[in-house]
């Protein structure tokens, strides 16, 4: 297998603790005057994008920011609930950078790059400092100090939070920082603008093509570097905890232009979500993992138990997480908890009308701490639950089931967060970086902000100082050629004039992915999924119905473009899942297990799988970045 396309990951030498410092010390620098001449495009203004825009503008760069939303404040980061990790050790419970690093590496089942994860832990504390200085109202103790709680996969309390609205508060902090730079004229914000294509010249990223969602205008934008901060793609499952607009388009279109896609099949299914209750349901709402600090998860011991929860005596309840994983109990990591939930439901012990959920029970905690305390901690979450289900969670246990939630996979990046395409950087959920095969709770916010505030703004300067050529004009033929391709694709979509709605294709694709490339996967299922996806894609291009035109606000057309990309990307996910003949983290191959626990194969699969597009007619090529563990020993992941 050729490895020429996969560049060196640029991990600096030296001891683990010194690597980031070494990297910073050796970066080429640009003078303030030269920074002002450099233009950087940032696509996506969620936590990662907004924090990067603000910081790069503070450093003096000209920043052009793009979002398909009407405002940066609507990015899906706003929905993050439970909290953000940092190794501050404010609780004096033995936390340290090393422990946060180890927990994250182990949580990811030894499928992430050690040096990146160590850096993340080192930076985590500064993120909290920065956010507090911006006025982010984190929860506090009565004495005025910041409060912490625990999240899955950790035995210490290192999670900072703002009720169940941590993402909202952090995003509004970053939004404020970016707004300040917009006011100063250093960030130019383009809302309701969707990136359709990446533009390359001589192998470098030199700009993007966007569609104005109000007028349909297709435009070229050139810059010295392009940053993607476009979020995750769990929405491919149709029903997920993600927002309706979450998509893979920017990443996938860049992949088609040569960017490597790493570990695309590593997607997280979150254990605690409100289950599917009826056919029209369009969304699976997350109930934050933080609830597991006080909630106990159980099902009846006997299958088909028809009694109400409160009528089932203690001895006839199975607190299966506490039973199977006594050390971590209800705070076992997400992949393991989700599978355990699926298992008891598959055994026929699920509860609820459709028998496919488990109880998350707050009764013990209410008895111990009182209703007021639980309300103070989780009030808004529990209100949300009641709104949706019409059931009072203070009186009855919540019913939950796993749902698609987060993409660990994403575009491949090196230690500088640059993809294999020079000048194309990827941050936040859109890159594959730090979470390996499974992300721990409260670490996505940490990673997005580490990337945006502290890493990218430094490393991008190195690229710009070292070797960025003269900026390509947006009149260059590479732009007009790419504009034509984008326009052509839209015309083809509108020309289908078939009968089926976009949503119906999305639903069908979601079903295929959920059953064959979700919580459990096997060779047979994945192979049939690849066939079914390909057939569905053919139907889509033959029988799609879009009403309306290309030169107007047309939400169906926007949606169609995103689903068209999902229909191609789904196949890549399945291929990746097929090629990884092991179980690790959230990737669970039924063929590779010991009594239901994932069986890793370090000898053959201790690598990042980076896929290279080879044209529509060919299967993509797999490149492997070997993962070495100098600091963390690759042991069996044991939460018992």
């Amino acid at each position, binding site marked *: 297998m050729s490895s020429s396309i996969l560049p060196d990951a640029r991990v600096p030498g030296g001891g683990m603790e010194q690597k980031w410092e070494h990297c910073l010390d050796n970066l080429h620098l640009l003078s303030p005057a030269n920074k002002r001449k450099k233009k950087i495009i940032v696509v996506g203004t969620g936590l990662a994008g907004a924090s990067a825009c*603000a*910081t790069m503008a*503070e450093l003096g760069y000209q920043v052009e920011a793009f979002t398909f*939303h*009407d*405002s940066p*404040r*609507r990015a*899906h980061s*706003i*929905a993050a609930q439970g909290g953000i990790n940092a190794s*501050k050790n*404010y609780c004096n419970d033995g936390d340290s950078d090393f422990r946060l690093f180890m927990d994250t590496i182990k949580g990811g089942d030894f499928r992430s790059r050690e040096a990146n994860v160590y850096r993340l832990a080192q930076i985590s*504390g500064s993120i*909290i*400092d*920065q956010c*507090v*200085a*911006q*006025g982010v*109202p984190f*929860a*506090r*103790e*009565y*004495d*005025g100090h*910041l409060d912490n709680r625990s999240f899955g996969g950790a035995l210490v309390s290192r999670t900072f939070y*703002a*009720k169940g*609205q941590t993402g*909202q*508060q952090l995003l509004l902090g970053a939004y*404020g*920082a970016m*707004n*300040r730079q917009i*006011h100063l004229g250093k960030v130019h914000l383009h809302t309701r603008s969707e990136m359709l294509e990446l533009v390359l010249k001589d192998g470098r990223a030199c700009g993007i093509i966007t569609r104005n969602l109000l007028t349909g205008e297709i435009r070229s934008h050139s810059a010295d570097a392009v940053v993607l901060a476009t979020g995750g793609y769990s929405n491919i499952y149709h029903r997920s905890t993600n927002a*309706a607009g979450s998509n893979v388009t920017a990443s996938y279109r860049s992949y088609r232009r040569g960017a490597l896609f790493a570990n695309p099949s590593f997607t997280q299914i979150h254990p605690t979500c409100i289950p599917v209750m*009826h056919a*029209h*349901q*369009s*969304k699976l*709402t997350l109930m934050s993992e933080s609830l597991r600090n006080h909630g106990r998860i159980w099902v009846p011991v006997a299958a088909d138990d028809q009694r109400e929860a409160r009528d089932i005596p203690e001895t006839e309840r199975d607190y299966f997480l506490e039973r199977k994983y006594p050390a971590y109990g209800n705070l076992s990591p997400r992949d393991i908890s989700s599978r355990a939930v699926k298992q008891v439901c598959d055994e026929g012990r699920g509860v609820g009308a459709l028998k496919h959920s488990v109880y998350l029970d707050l009764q013990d905690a209410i008895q111990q701490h009182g209703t007021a305390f639980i309300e103070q901690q989780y009030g808004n979450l529990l209100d*949300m639950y009641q*709104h*949706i289900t*019409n059931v009072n969670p203070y009186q009855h246990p919540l019913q939950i089931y796993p749902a698609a939630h987060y993409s660990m996979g994403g575009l491949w990046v090196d230690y500088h967060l640059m993809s294999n395409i020079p000048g194309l950087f990827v941050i936040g959920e859109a890159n594959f970086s730090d979470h390996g095969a499974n992300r721990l709770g409260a670490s996505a916010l940490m990673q997005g902000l580490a990337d945006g*505030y*502290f890493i990218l703004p430094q490393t991008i300067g190195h690229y710009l100082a070292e070797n960025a050529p003269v900026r390509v004009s947006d009149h260059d033929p590479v732009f007009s050629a790419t504009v034509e391709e984008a326009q052509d694709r839209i015309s083809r979509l509108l020309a289908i004039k078939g009968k089926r*709605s976009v*949503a119906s294709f999305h639903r069908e694709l979601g079903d295929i992915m959920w059953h064959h490339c979700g919580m459990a996967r096997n060779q047979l299922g994945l192979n049939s999924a690849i066939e079914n996806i390909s057939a569905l894609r053919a139907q889509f291009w033959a029988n799609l119905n879009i*009403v*309306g035109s290309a030169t*107007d*606000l047309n*939400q*169906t057309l926007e949606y169609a473009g995103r689903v068209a990309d999902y229909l191609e990307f789904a196949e890549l996910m399945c291929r990746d899942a097929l090629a990884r003949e092991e179980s690790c983290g959230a990737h669970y191959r039924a063929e590779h297990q010991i009594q239901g626990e994932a069986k890793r194969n370090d000898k053959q699969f201790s690598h990042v799988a980076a896929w290279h597009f080879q044209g529509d007619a060919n299967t993509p090529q797999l490149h492997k970045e070997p993962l070495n563990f100098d600091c963390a020993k690759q042991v069996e992941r044991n939460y018992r």
Partner: protein
Amino acid sequence: MKFILSVWRQPSATATGRLVDYPIDGIGADDSFLEVIDAINENLMAQQQEPIAYEMDCREGICGSCSLMINGSAHGPQRATTTCQLYMREFSDGETITVEPWRADALPVIKDLIVDRSAMDRIMQSAGYISVHTGEAPDANEILVSKHRADRAFEAASCIGCGACIAACPNASAMLFVAAKVVQLALLPQGQPERCHRVISMVEAMDREGFGNCSNHYECAEACPKSIPLSVIAHLNREFLQAGLFGREFSAAAHRVVHEE
């Protein structure tokens, strides 16, 4: 259940709009309001008619995208609820439900039920933040904030920027929205240096964008899906008066004489 949705259709900003009735059947009490619009849209598209344009994203009450006037109430009949969290069990079977966009000069209609809320962003851009460069911050526990104060700052900070307060106000005033941010930052020690500057700049920006004045109708807090309390408006007024007295450049942190709640 079945319903008739009487929906505002307006092809573009400049076109005239009108209400059009769409009957729909087979709806469950646990279906969400937006899922009903989706069902109508699927029917419309099957008949080659343009679907109803409306905004939503998170569908869990936090992004502030959804924004419908339902039977004349912003976000519909249920208190402290966004449109996306409204379920059909709140309506009676057979009901005709009117669905319109927000109406305010500063939030013009773009198409059907979608309005342009960028004026709200521009107010925030004017001064709705604490100026601190990345990397400048001291340790997070260096400045203590009492729990009571932090909780109140959080309460104000939970605004989702939906604009329901503006839509509900007879004057289309943005006072509740602006006050929520001003009060959040005025309550925190980190917000003191720019406190006077912030409130003056944001109120000026609000006026510039053409939002109306507040004449104490109090419809805003009724409509607010996040229960931002009315008291933030009184607090904003005090902040504004105080800033008028001391001047824009007055730094509350340096003088420590300001009124604190």
